[in-house]
C-alpha cells in the first residue's frame, strides 16, 4: 500500500471505477462464485487503466478491450483474478473466496477499517449476516456465544428487554461494568437496543484490549462494541430485498414437579392446615377430579413473532444509499407481554469525484411499544405474576361458572377478606385480574443520527469530523385500574375513598451528543516504512430530563384519559374528617453529563511485517474536583507477522501473527449508570415533605473531594493464525486486566449522618484466556461444511478492599465481597442436612462443626460466584447446493445462583403450611419420624425459604448451562426457477431459538443477567420462525 488513506477510504477505492469508452471489441461474460451464484457488482478493470465496468445482478458484464489487454475482476471478499483477452469474446469467471476475505476486515475506532493482517489489537468481528435470521427483538442478544470473552446475559423473556453485557469479566465494583457501544460512530445507550433494527447491522466488532478500546478512552475501560450498519455501494443499480417472517414463542421445558390437587390436599391434611385439613380421602378425590389447575398453563401462552423488512440499496458514481424499513412484532410467552417496533433508516455516502473528500450520513428512527409486567423478582404476593404462575394452588379453578377463563375468581374489588383469607390463597386470581385490567406500557422513539466527513486536503494530510447523536424519548404509562380487585386499595384511605386506581406516567428524554475532529498525516518512506499519526479532539454531552406524575384516584368511566384523573382538590368525608384523598404527586428530573478529550494515535509498519501503534489521551471529567479532573491514559501495541518471514515460506500458514498490547484506561462512572453520581464531590442539601406535613431542609450528601479516575490496566498477548488458505483459522488471547482505585462505598462513622461514601479504594483483577477457532471441513461447488468454536476462561479476584472492611464487605445478603475472592461470591452458612433425631436443619459452623443454630458468624466464602468462569459457544454450518443447515450453541459454566423459586416450593416453616401456595412433590421427603434420613427438615421447623436463601447455601445451585442458541435450515431457490420472473433471488428458512437446554439448575431458566437470586422472574422463551427473503 503506497498511500494510506483512512481505512474506509481504502475500502471504497476498491469499488471505484471510471467508465470510459473505447473502440475495441466487446468482451462479455458472467461472474459467479464457487457455488455458481452470480456476483453482481464485480468490478472489471482494464489493467493499467482506469477504465472498467461492473457486473449486473445476474453477474453479467460487458467491456470493450483489445486482444492482449488484461482484465482484472475484483469483488470484495474474493481473490482478484486477471485474464488476458484472447480470441474469444466471452469470458466467464469464477471468483474464489479470498483467504483475506471479509471476515478479516477489522473495524477500529472512529470508523477506521484495518485488516486482520495489519491489526495489532485484540478485536473480534462478527458479520451480522450470520445472525440475520434470528428472531430476538434485541439485536444484541444474538451475539451471545459468538465472541470469546463476551457475555450477553439476558435475564428476562420480555421481548426487547435489556441484557447485561460483560466483556472479560466485571471490571468494577460500584462503577459501570458494561462495554461502550458505538453505532456508526455514535456512542449509544448500552442499555437500550429494542428500537434498533437488527437487520440493519453489517458488523459487530468487539474491541477487547487496551490497544483497541483505549481510543475511546474514559468510556471504554470495559472494552467497546463497535457496530456498523449496512450501506450501498457506488455504481450499483437499484436493488430491493424483502424479508418476511412468522413464528411462535413458547415456554422452555421446566424442571418443576409441582403437587397436584390430590397431593397438596393430602399434604395439608397431614399437617392439619389449609383446605385439606380434616378432609376424607373421598372428599379429596372429589376435589381432585373436579379441579387440577396448572397455573403455569394459565399464565403462559404460545406467543407469535412476525416481521417485515424491506431494504433498498443503490449507488451512483459519487453517492450510494441504503434505505430500510422494518416492522417487528413479538408477543411474549407470558400474558400481557407484547412488543412492537417500526424502524426506518437511511445511510448515505458521498464523495468527490477525485476521492479526496468523502462523507456519510446515517439516520435511523425507531418507534417501539412495549407492554410488560412489573415486579418480576418481587416478594410481593399480589404483584409478582411469575410467582403466581408457579405457586398457584392446583385446586383453585381458573374458570368461571360459565366455563370461561375467569378474570377475578369471583372476588369483588376491595374485598380484603377474600384477598387475605387462607394465607392469600386467591393471589393467582388477583394477578390474572391485574394483568387483564391494568396497563404497563412503554412507548419509545429513538433517533440515531451521525455525520462523518474526511477530506484529504493536502498531500498526506487528512482532516476528519464526526458528529453523532442518540436521542431517546420514552413515555411509560402504568395504570392500576380502579375496577380491578386491587383498585380500591390504592389511595391512602383505601376502600374508604370513593375512587380507587392509580395512574403513573413518566416522560423522559435522553439526548447524547458527541463530536470528534481529527487531523491526520500518513506517508510511506522508502517503500517499506508506513507511518501515520492522527490527533483528535472530542466533545461529549449528555442531557437527560423527564417529568412524571402519580395520581391516586381514577374515574372508572374514563380510565387512561386525562379526564379520568380525579381532581386533586376533591374532598371527601372519611371517618368524620374532611380529607383530600386524590392529591397527585409530580416530579421532574434534569441531569447533565459531559466529557472533553484530546488524544493522538500513531502507527508504524515496516514492510507489512512489523507493526507498532500507540495512543495517548487526556480526558476531562466533570465528576471530579479541579486537581483530579484530568486523567492521562495510553496504550502501546506491536505485531509481528511471522508468516511474512522467509523461514515460513512453504509452510501451511497463510497467517501467523503475534501481537501484544498494554495500556491504561480510565473510568469516571462512579455509579454504574450513565447519569449517576454527578456531584459526589460537593456537600449538598435537599428538601422535601417533612415533619407534620411541612417542608423540610436537610443535608443529604457529604462530599468526597478525593474522588478520582478509576484506572484499568490491561495487558494482552495474542496470536492470529490461518492455515491452508484459511481453511483453519483462529486466535488465542491471554490477558490480565487490573482495575485500581476501584469505585466502592467506603464505610464512615455514622456521626456523619450517613454510613457510606463513594471512594476510590482497592483493586480487582480479571485474568483470562480466550480461544477462537474456525475450520472449513469441505468447500467445493456443492458442499461447504464448517465448524467453529470459541471459549474463554476468566478468573476474577478482588485484590484489595477498603481497610475499613477488614477485607470483607457483607451487606447482609447472600453474597459478599472479600479480598482474594471473586466479585459476587456467595458468603453463606453451609447447610448440612437434617438432624435425624428431631428433624431440625443442621449447619456447619465456620470450623466445620455441626450446629442447629444459624448465625452469621458461621458464614464462609463458598468459592462460588454469580459470574461465570467459563463461557463460550460453538456450532456448525453445512451447505449443500441451495440448502444450508447451521446451528449455534452457547454455554456458561462455574456460575451459581440462589434458587428462591425452588426454596419457596419447599417452604415448610412454622405457620407456612397454609400460605396459599403450591409445593414441590419433593416436600413429601420431609423429615417425619425419629431416625428419618432426609435432606428436607421437618414441616413446621423454624426457618423459612428466605432464611435459607439469605443465610445458607441450601438452595445455592449450579446455574451452568449448555443451550442450543439457534438452529436454522435455509434453502436458496436455484436461479433457473427465477429466470422468467422479475426476482433475482429467493430464500426460505426455518429457525429455532433456545430449543434445547442442558442444565442442573432447578428454576425457570438457568440464564440470567447475573442476579444473585431467582424469584418469580420472566424466563426466556423458545422461538420458532419461518421466513422468506426475496431479492428483486
Amino acid at each position: 500500500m503506497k498511500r494510506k488513506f483512512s481505512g474506509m477510504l481504502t475500502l471504497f477505492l476498491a469499488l471505484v471505477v471510471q467508465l470510459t469508452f473505447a473502440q475495441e471489441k466487446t468482451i462479455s461474460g458472467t461472474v459467479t462464485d464457487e457455488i455458481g451464484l452470480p456476483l453482481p457488482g464485480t468490478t472489471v478493470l482494464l489493467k493499467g487503466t482506469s477504465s472498467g465496468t461492473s457486473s449486473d445482478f445476474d453477474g453479467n458484464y460487458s467491456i470493450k478491450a483489445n486482444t492482449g489487454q488484461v482484465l482484472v475482476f475484483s469483488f470484495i471478499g474474493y481473490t482478484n483474478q486477471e485474464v488476458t483477452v484472447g480470441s474469444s469474446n466471452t469470458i466467464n469467471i469464477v471468483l474464489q473466496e479470498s483467504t483475506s476475505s471479509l471476515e478479516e476486515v477489522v473495524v477500529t475506532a472512529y470508523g477506521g477499517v484495518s485488516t486482520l493482517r495489519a491489526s495489532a489489537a485484540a478485536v473480534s468481528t462478527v458479520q451480522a449476516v450470520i445472525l440475520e435470521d434470528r428472531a430476538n427483538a434485541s439485536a444484541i442478544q444474538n451475539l451471545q456465544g459468538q465472541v470469546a470473552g463476551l457475555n450477553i446475559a439476558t435475564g428476562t423473556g420480555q421481548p426487547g428487554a435489556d441484557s447485561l453485557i460483560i466483556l472479560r469479566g466485571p471490571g468494577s465494583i460500584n462503577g459501570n461494568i458494561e462495554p461502550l457501544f458505538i453505532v456508526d460512530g455514535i456512542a449509544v445507550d448500552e442499555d437500550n437496543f429494542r428500537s434498533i433494527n437488527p437487520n440493519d447491522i453489517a458488523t459487530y466488532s468487539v474491541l477487547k484490549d487496551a490497544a483497541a478500546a483505549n481510543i475511546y478512552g474514559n468510556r471504554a475501560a470495559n472494552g467497546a462494541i463497535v457496530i456498523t450498519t449496512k450501506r450501498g455501494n457506488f455504481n450499483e443499480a437499484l436493488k430491493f430485498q424483502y424479508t418476511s417472517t412468522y413464528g411462535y414463542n413458547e415456554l422452555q421445558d421446566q424442571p418443576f414437579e409441582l403437587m397436584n390437587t390430590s397431593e397438596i390436599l393430602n399434604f395439608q391434611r397431614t399437617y392439619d392446615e389449609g383446605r385439606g385439613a380434616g378432609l376424607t380421602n373421598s372428599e379429596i378425590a372429589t376435589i381432585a377430579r373436579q379441579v387440577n389447575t396448572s397455573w403455569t398453563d394459565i399464565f403462559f401462552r404460545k406467543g407469535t413473532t412476525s416481521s417485515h423488512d424491506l431494504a433498498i440499496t443503490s449507488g451512483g458514481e459519487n453517492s450510494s444509499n441504503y434505505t430500510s424499513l422494518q416492522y417487528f412484532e413479538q408477543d411474549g410467552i407470558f400474558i400481557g407481554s407484547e412488543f412492537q417496533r417500526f424502524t426506518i433508516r437511511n445511510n448515505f455516502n458521498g464523495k468527490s469525484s477525485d476521492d479526496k473528500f468523502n462523507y456519510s450520513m446515517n439516520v435511523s428512527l425507531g418507534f417501539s411499544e412495549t407492554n410488560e409486567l412489573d415486579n418480576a423478582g418481587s416478594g410481593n404476593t399480589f404483584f409478582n405474576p411469575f410467582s403466581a404462575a408457579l405457586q398457584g394452588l392446583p385446586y383453585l379453578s381458573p374458570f368461571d361458572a360459565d366455563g370461561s377463563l375467569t378474570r377475578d375468581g369471583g372476588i369483588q374489588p376491595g374485598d380484603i377478606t377474600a384477598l387475605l383469607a387462607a394465607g392469600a390463597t386467591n393471589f393467582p386470581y388477583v394477578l390474572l385480574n391485574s394483568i387483564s385490567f391494568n396497563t404497563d406500557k412503554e412507548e419509545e422513539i429513538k433517533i440515531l443520527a451521525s455525520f462523518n466527513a474526511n477530506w484529504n486536503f493536502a498531500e498526506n494530510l487528512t482532516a476528519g469530523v464526526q458528529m453523532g447523536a442518540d436521542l431517546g424519548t420514552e413515555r411509560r404509562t402504568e395504570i392500576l385500574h380502579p375496577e380491578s380487585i386491587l383498585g380500591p386499595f390504592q389511595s391512602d384511605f383505601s376502600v374508604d375513598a370513593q375512587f380507587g386506581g392509580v395512574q403513573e406516567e413518566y416522560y423522559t428524554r435522553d439526548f447524547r451528543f458527541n463530536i470528534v475532529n481529527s487531523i491526520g498525516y500518513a506517508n510511506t518512506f522508502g517503500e517499506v516504512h508506513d507511518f501515520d499519526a492522527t490527533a483528535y479532539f472530542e466533545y461529549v454531552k449528555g442531557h437527560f430530563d423527564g417529568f412524571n406524575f402519580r395520581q391516586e384516584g381514577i374515574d372508572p368511566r374514563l380510565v387512561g384519559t386525562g379526564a379520568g384523573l380525579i381532581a386533586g382538590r376533591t374532598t371527601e368525608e372519611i371517618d368524620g374528617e374532611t380529607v383530600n384523598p386524590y392529591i397527585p404527586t409530580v416530579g421532574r428530573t434534569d441531569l447533565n453529563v459531559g466529557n472533553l478529550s484530546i488524544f493522538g494515535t500513531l502507527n508504524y509498519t515496516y514492510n507489512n511485517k512489523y507493526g507498532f501503534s500507540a495512543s495517548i489521551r487526556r480526558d476531562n471529567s466533570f465528576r471530579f474536583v479541579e486537581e483530579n479532573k484530568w486523567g492521562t491514559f495510553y496504550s502501546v501495541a506491536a505485531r509481528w507477522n511471522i508468516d511474512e518471514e522467509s523461514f515460513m515460506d512453504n509452510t501451511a500458514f497463510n497467517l501467523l501473527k503475534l501481537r501484544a498490547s498494554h495500556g491504561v484506561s480510565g473510568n469516571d462512572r462512579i455509579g454504574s449508570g450513565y447519569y449517576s453520581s454527578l456531584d459526589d464531590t460537593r456537600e449538598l442539601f435537599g428538601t422535601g415533605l417533612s415533619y407534620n406535613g411541612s417542608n423540610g431542609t436537610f443535608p443529604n450528601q457529604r462530599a468526597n473531594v478525593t474522588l478520582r479516575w478509576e484506572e484499568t490496566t490491561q495487558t494482552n498477548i495474542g496470536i492470529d493464525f490461518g492455515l491452508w488458505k484459511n481453511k483453519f483459522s483462529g486466535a488465542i488471547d491471554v490477558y490480565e486486566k487490573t482495575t485500581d482505585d476501584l469505585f466502592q462505598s467506603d464505610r464512615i462513622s455514622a456521626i456523619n449522618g450517613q454510613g457510606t461514601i463513594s471512594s476510590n479504594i482497592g483493586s480487582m483483577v480479571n485474568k483470562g484466556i480466550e480461544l477462537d477457532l474456525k475450520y472449513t471441513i469441505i468447500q467445493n461447488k456443492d458442499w461447504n461444511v464448517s465448524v467453529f468454536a470459541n471459549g474463554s476462561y476468566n478468573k476474577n479476584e478482588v485484590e484489595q478492599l477498603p481497610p475499613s472492611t477488614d477485607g470483607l464487605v457483607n451487606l447482609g445478603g447472600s453474597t459478599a465481597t472479600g479480598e482474594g475472592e471473586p466479585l459476587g461470591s456467595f458468603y453463606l452458612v453451609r447447610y448440612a442436612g437434617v438432624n435425624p433425631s428431631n428433624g431440625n436443619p443442621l449447619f456447619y459452623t465456620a470450623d466445620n462443626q455441626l450446629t442447629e443454630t444459624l448465625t452469621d458468624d458461621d458464614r464462609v466464602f463458598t468459592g462460588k460466584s454469580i459470574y461465570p468462569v467459563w463461557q463460550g459457544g460453538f456450532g456448525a454450518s453445512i451447505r449443500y447446493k441451495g440448502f444450508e443447515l447451521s446451528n449455534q450453541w452457547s454455554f456458561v459454566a462455574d456460575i451459581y445462583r440462589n434458587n428462591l423459586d425452588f426454596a419457596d416450593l419447599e417452604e415448610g416453616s412454622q405457620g407456612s403450611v397454609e400460605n396459599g401456595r403450591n409445593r414441590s412433590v419433593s416436600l413429601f421427603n420431609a423429615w417425619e419420624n425419629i431416625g428419618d434420613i432426609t435432606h428436607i427438615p421437618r414441616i413446621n421447623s423454624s426457618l423459612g425459604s428466605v432464611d435459607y436463601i439469605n443465610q445458607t447455601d441450601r438452595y445455592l445451585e449450579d446455574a451452568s448451562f449448555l443451550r442450543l442458541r439457534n438452529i436454522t435450515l435455509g434453502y436458496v431457490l436455484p436461479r433457473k426457477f427465477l429466470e422468467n420472473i422479475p426476482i433475482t433471488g429467493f430464500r426460505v428458512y426455518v429457525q429455532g431459538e433456545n430449543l434445547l437446554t442442558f442444565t442442573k439448575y432447578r428454576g425457570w431458566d438457568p440464564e440470567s443477567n447475573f442476579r444473585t437470586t431467582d424469584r418469580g422472574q420472566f424466563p426466556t422463551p423458545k422461538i420458532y420462525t419461518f421466513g422468506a427473503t426475496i431479492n428483486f
Partner: protein
Amino acid sequence: MKTYKFFTTIFSSMVLLLAMSCSDATDIVQDGELNEAAAIKDVVDLQSALNSVYSSYGPDFGGNGSGDVIYFNAIFTDNLKSGVANNGQGSQAYGFLVDISGNSISEFLWPNRYLTIFRANIALNALNNLTIESTDLDEANHIKGQLLALRALAHFDLFQYFTSDYQNDAALSIINVDFIPTIADQFERNTVAETLAFIKADLNEAATLLDPNNSTSANPIFINNDFIDALKVNIALLEGDNSSTIMNLAESLLAKYPLANQTEYFNIFSDDSNAEVIFKLSRVNGTNGIGDLFYFNQVDPDDAYLEASNELYNELSEVPNDIRFFTNIDSQSNFIATNDPDNLLLIGKYPGSGDGLQINDIKVMRSAEILLIKAEMEARNNMLVEAATSIQDLRTARVGTPQPLPVYTNLNDALVDILKERRKELCFEGQRFLDLKRLGGELNIGVDRLSVDCESFEAPCNLEANNFRFTLGIPQSELNGNRVITQNSGY
C-alpha cells in the same frame, strides 16, 4: 477548489466553535444542587431545617420484620407472638438472634439517632453563621432550643441502649457529637459521666432558649419546656437520682398533665385526644406508618404478621374494664380460649387515623410514664405507701372505678408490681426491653414467654436477666467505619 475553500471554512469554524464551548462539558453543576449558604438563609429556612430534624427521628421506623426501638422492644421480649399472615417476619429477633448487621436493631437505632444529631448540628451551625434580625431573635432561640433538645433526646436514646451500666460513671457509653464531623473522623465512645453531662447541658441550655409563648409550645407535637423536664425526670431515674428536686419536677408535670380518662385514653391512640401527652411525634399522610410494624396493610384479621402475645393478653384482661385491654387488643380479635394456639390477638394500639390506615402519631412521653417513674422513685426512697398510691391512681384512671391500694412489703415487691404496670401501660411504645434491662436486671426477671407464644415462632421462650443482649452491640457498619470504637462485651 472553491468547494475546498468552503470546506476549510466549515472545518475551521467547527473547531473554533468547539474550543469555545468546552467549559460546558467540563464544569457541570446539576440543577437543584443546594449548598449550605443557599439552603439556610433565614429563620424560615431554619424552621425548615428543624422540621427535618424532627422528621429524621424515627423510633417507629421499620416494617416487614425489622425496625427501630418500638418494633425491637416488642419483638425481643414477651409482648408478641407470630401472626396469622406471618411468613418469617421477626423470627430471627424473636429467637434472640440479635446480630449487629443487616436489619438488626443496632443498624436501625445507631444510624438513625446519629442522623438526627448530624442534622441538628448542621442546623445549629447554620444558625450560628446567620445574622439574625432582632425581631427574629425569639423565634431563632426557640428553634435553637428545640434543636438542642432533639440532640439531647437522640443522645439519650443511644445512651439507654448501648450503655451496659447507667450508674457506672466510667463505663463506655456513646459518642457525644456537638460539631460537624469530617468524613475521616473516628471516635471512641465517651463515658457515662461525660454523656450524661452532655445531655443535661443541652437540656439546660434548651430550657433557657425555648419560648413558652411561642405557638408551638402549646402543641404537643413540638418540644416545649415540659418535655425537657420530663426528660430530666427520666434521666434521673436511670442515674438513680431520687432527690426531692426531681420528685417535685415530676409532681409539677403531673399537675399540668393529668391522667386521661378512659375515653380520652382510647382516643389518644387514634390521635383524637392529646390528654396526658407531653410530647408526641406527628405522623401524617406521606410520612411513616407505624402499623407497618405489625400489619402488611391495615388492622385486619387476615393481615397481621405479628400479634399480641397470649401472655400480654392475659395480663391486660386481669382486671375487667381496663381500658388498656380495649386499646391494645383490637375488637376484631378472635379469642378462643386461654392460651389457645389459635387465638387471634390483633394489636390495636395503632389503629390508623385520618392520615391513613397505618398512620398514627408516636407518643414519646405521656404523664402516665412520669407517674410510673415517680412511683419507682418513691419505692426506692422507701416510700412504699406513696408508691402504692401512685400505682393505684393509675389503675383507677384506667379501669374507670376506684381500684384497691396495692400492698408492698418491701422494695422488691413494689418494683415487681411497677414493672408489671409499666408493661400494661406502655406496651408497644418502646419500653418493655428497656424495663427488663433496667428493672429486670435488678429483679432477676428476664424474658419469660408462655410456651404458646414462643412456639408460634418455634423460638426459645426465655432469656435470662442481665444477658449481654440487654446491652446492644455497636453496629457492624460503625465498627467498619470507625476503627477506634470499642464494642460491647458479648458481641
